[in-house]
């Protein structure tokens, strides 16, 4: 078990936030559906999984398929946008279909019937996916799709100047030794072996010094792709906030969330609002799935949605289910907690700790972190 290394704490917090932003996107779908229907949509993780496959198939259609052994097309941001939109659209459609075919007939039944239906839909999609989706070996979206493959590094504390100078000096010696050794080898001189050994020993010194300098540097490295992922997530959340708070549809959603029957009596088209809720929630999951598969290059399988689904559900409950800012907060918190557990060297307990945090929060705030009867639910 590794000790706590404070110099990588900033990096680990960033890792956690990046991971958490995906959880937050999925958690939004859970929380919105719960807010409107008081239904936990267990099939949400499967919508997420199908979104990832939609992105995969789009990338294949764009020419980044596994068979095209030849030169794939030039990577472009446009492809990413197309994949994002297709994935969101496919998920929105699937979400709406699930609502129409599975949940709507159960609308007036006891709530447990809907809940069991949700579990049924989830299992159905997983195993039907197992029959029809490519899965073994797990396909991954080609990295050639994304033009954003660089990294951004922010140095918080540079290495000591004298160490940097030492490294430069050793590097010069290493280069000299290398060319000497290579020359000797090319001419088959008897001292070639000795020179080679000397070069390798200098090379080791260099590595050791570089390592020493590295350990005294505090820096944060973020791949460009993940930065874009975070920005996209924030933009989508802002759009969602605008829809819910500033538009007529949003007002209808809030009304339905507040009181289903009264809203219907006041002339709100409840069926349409519920469908819209599923569409928006699923589209967000689709966006999350596309980025999960493309930027993080996760290998896909029909069970891809299970773990993120559970985590996002916990995140939604943690933040206060039915509460939009709560879902975001819960998601980010889950990502950070998970990362910090690995940082502390207890990777085996990674998933368990998330549940422990949830239990502790629910003990003290049964409604979740931001959940209270005062907050408007959507």
């Amino acid at each position, binding site marked *: 078990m590794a000790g706590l290394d404070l110099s990588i704490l900033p990096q*680990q917090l960033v890792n956690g936030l990046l991971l958490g932003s995906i959880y937050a996107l999925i958690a939004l779908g859970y929380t919105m559906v719960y807010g409107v229907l008081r239904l936990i949509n267990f099939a949400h993780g499967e919508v997420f999984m199908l979104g990832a496959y939609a992105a995969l198939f789009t990338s294949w259609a764009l020419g980044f398929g*596994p068979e095209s052994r030849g030169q794939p097309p030039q990577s472009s941001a446009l492809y990413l946008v197309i994949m994002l939109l297709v994935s969101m659209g496919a998920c929105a459609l699937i979400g709406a279909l699930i609502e129409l075919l599975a949940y709507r007939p159960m609308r007036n039944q006891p*709530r447990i019937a809907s809940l069991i239906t949700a579990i049924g839909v989830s299992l159905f999609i997983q195993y039907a996916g197992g029959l029809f989706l490519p899965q073994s070996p797990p396909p991954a979206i080609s990295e050639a799709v994304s033009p954003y493959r660089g990294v951004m590094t922010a140095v918080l504390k540079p290495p000591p100047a004298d160490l940097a100078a030492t490294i430069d000096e050793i590097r010069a010696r290493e280069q000299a030794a290398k060319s000497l050794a290579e020359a000797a080898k090319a001419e088959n001189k008897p001292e070639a072996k000795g020179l080679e050994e000397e070069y390798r020993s200098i090379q080791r010194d260099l590595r050791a010094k570089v390592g020493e300098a*590295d*350990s005294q540097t505090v820096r944060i490295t973020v791949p460009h792709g993940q930065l874009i992922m975070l920005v996209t997530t924030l933009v989508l959340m802002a759009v969602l906030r605008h829809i819910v708070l500033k538009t007529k549809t949003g007002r209808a959603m809030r009304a339905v969330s507040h009181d289903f029957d009264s809203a219907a009596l006041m002339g709100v088209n409840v069926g349409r609002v519920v469908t819209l809720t599923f569409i928006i929630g699923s589209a967000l999951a689709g966006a999350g799935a596309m980025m999960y598969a493309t930027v993080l290059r996760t290998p896909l399988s029909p069970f891809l949605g299970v773990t993120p689904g559970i985590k996002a559900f916990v995140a939604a409950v943690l933040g206060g289910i039915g509460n939009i800012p709560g879902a975001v907060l819960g998601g980010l918190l889950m990502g950070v907690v998970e990362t910090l557990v690995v940082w502390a060297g207890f990777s085996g307990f990674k998933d368990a700790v998330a*549940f422990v945090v949830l239990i502790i929060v*629910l003990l003290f705030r049964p409604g979740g972190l931001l959940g209270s009867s005062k907050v408007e639910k959507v």
Partner: protein
Amino acid sequence: MVKRTINQTWAVLALAAIAACSLVGCKEPETAGTGGEGTAKSSGSETSSTGVRRALKVDGPEVKGDKILIGLVAAQNGDQKPWGDDSVKGAQLAVDAANAAGGVNGKQIQLLVGDSNSDPVAGKNAAQKLVNDGVIGVLGEVASGTTQQIAQVTYDAGVPLIAIGATRTDLADIGSNFFRVCYTDDFQGPVMAKFAYDDLNLRNVAIMTDAKLPYSVGLSDSFRKAFEARGGKIVDEQKYQQKETQFSSYISNLKSKNPDGVFLSGYFTEVGPIVSQLRQAGLSVPVFGGDGWDSSELISSGGEAIVGGFFCNHYNSKETRKEVQDFLSAWKQKYGGEPGTTMGALGFDAANLMIDAIKRSTSLKAKDIIAAIDSTENFPGVSGSITLKGQGGNPSKPALVVKVTKDGFVFEKSYSPEELN
């Protein structure tokens, strides 16, 4: 008020359901024990063989009827399908050749395939079914965790088991009916340690282990011992778990220890994404691992990042030995192309070894076939000459280090057991 309480009750109930699902549904049985009071340890830190093989308690079956049934357990589904498919094809090739040459004592051989579904428990059930169907010997598996389970079944039934690619060393202790055609991790680990120390000039290596794979735990352990014995230092070991997909937190931990190389002892399914994320995090040191890397999928999941990595393998299709070239041309004739993994060759070797032993056996009883396998000497396998006599089930064979390139795996260096000392 009442409504609110009900909602909370729902939330708690649903949560309990979810928690139960996640605990039961996602539980990987590989670390759950060896399924018996066997001497093999499932995930302890001590992984090397004790050298004591349990004697069989039963006499085992004998061939009845006019057909000789041989069982093969292989992953027909799941992550390890590339290995499973190749082992089936390889074994079938061997059986077809034997049948074309007249079979054994006028009896034709039939290969029965059971699906392990890339899962130890399913593998155990498949082996049990094969034994119930009356096979006289079992071949497989590739994964050590699955083989551990199969070996319990074959031990109880008293039929010989020839493992195809299971390298974990202590598997041979399960019973005196256990054999394999691959080298063990006690050899593979030191080979990569020597290669890393001498050829890559590394001194401070970090290890990434798949804590859920008995194979990975065992290989990391044997690498660590060998590398430290040479004077190198293991600066860090990170333990992830099979089927994880995001490794950034492990990588940040590892990076802070400034390794000059990373040894990844897991399977290609995770190694590809890890190395890809490793490079993204700005760590550019050499990466290397064991035969768990062996699949052309590694190149597609690892992308450009994995190019330049090294791993230990059983044979290479560029070798000029007659066995290799004959095997490749037979493969090409039947299936087209070349096998995507070395399990094609190892499956072929395992089946041929079994058939050869049945021919040499004094009777068609399982007991005598086990004795015949145990006395194998200089069997000309595709993956090198196999001698099992006096070896306790583990053949002494050379291992190759291959380099990952964009178009495939290229031979880099070969080590024989004698060279390691």
